[in-house]
């Protein structure tokens, strides 16, 4: 009886241990894993990170990153590894370089430009409406008003 329960306990702990070796990362390594996989794009489902994507390639890349973390590579080395093979597009957050200036600053520039044009238009419109009449126009206005009041009597 003792041997049987001993055997049971042993196989249970072996089973538990094999289940946990898949998650052999320390909490710090897990945080790095989470950070890295959320900063890299899945090339198959291109609007997802490799953390979120179910594509087989995403899984392969997650495994690769896990292996590289355990092997002692730092974050910079892992990112460089990916960019070397897949290019800048693999970075989920586009890098800031001359090619991407339009992407990063374009919307801001358009917004500011649009607002400026709008303000200019508004100022011009209000200037037209609140403008004083010239002397000629004032005399003409008086005459017209006189005529109207004469007509009403």
């Amino acid at each position, binding site marked *: 009886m003792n041997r049987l329960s001993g055997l049971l306990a042993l196989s249970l702990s072996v089973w538990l241990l094999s289940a946990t070796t898949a998650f052999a990362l320390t909490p710090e390594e897990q945080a790095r894993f989470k950070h890295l996989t959320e900063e890299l794009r899945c*090339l198959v489902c*291109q609007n997802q990170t490799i953390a979120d994507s179910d594509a*087989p390639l995403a899984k*392969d*890349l997650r495994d690769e990153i896990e292996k590289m973390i355990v092997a002692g590579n730092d974050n910079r080395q892992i990112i460089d590894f990916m960019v070397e*093979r*897949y*290019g800048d*597009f693999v970075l989920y957050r586009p890098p800031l370089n001359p090619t991407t200036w339009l992407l990063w600053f374009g919307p801001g520039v358009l917004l500011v430009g649009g607002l400026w044009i709008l303000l200019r238009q508004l100022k011009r419109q209000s200037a037209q409406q609140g403008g004083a009449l010239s002397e000629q126009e004032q005399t003409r206005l008086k005459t017209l008003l006189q005529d109207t009041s004469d007509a009403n009597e």
Partner: protein
Amino acid sequence: MKAKNFIPLIAFIALVALLGVGLTLNPREVPSPLINKPAPAFALPELYEPERELGSQDFLGQVSLFNVWASWCVSCRHEHPLLVELARRTDLPIYGLNYKDTRPEAKRWLQTFGNPYAAIAFDEAGRVGIDYGVYGVPETYVIDRKGNIRYKQIGPITVEDLNETILPLIKELQNEPA
């Protein structure tokens, strides 16, 4: 007719031009950072002869194609007849990278659709695929005599691709001094 009245029209035309160019671009095509760089080193067992190795060393000395394919890849069937024909008509070596496949299924597929390959590297885990930046099978690399990647075709090769891009490039590379 003041010049500045034309600004909205000019801005509109500029926007239309920008969007028009955008429509012709394909966002799924990710440009490869490996162009004009040496083909990443690898050595894998051959598909038919596991004791034999096929590696990046075999690219040296001649212009070749390196075609990534798999039996589970449906679009590979679209380009395969072209590769078979190319292998039949020319002596351009076509090396294959069998990506994340099994030996029996890969062999069966080649038996059905034909085998244009001089040799096939069996990349079961897909690790060499990662080194080559493979993200969507089929992909094909044009590799020059010195072992540098000069062009990457993403997706199946069409007749237009062959006639307009790939064959002219191969000719150019074959005329490069050794």
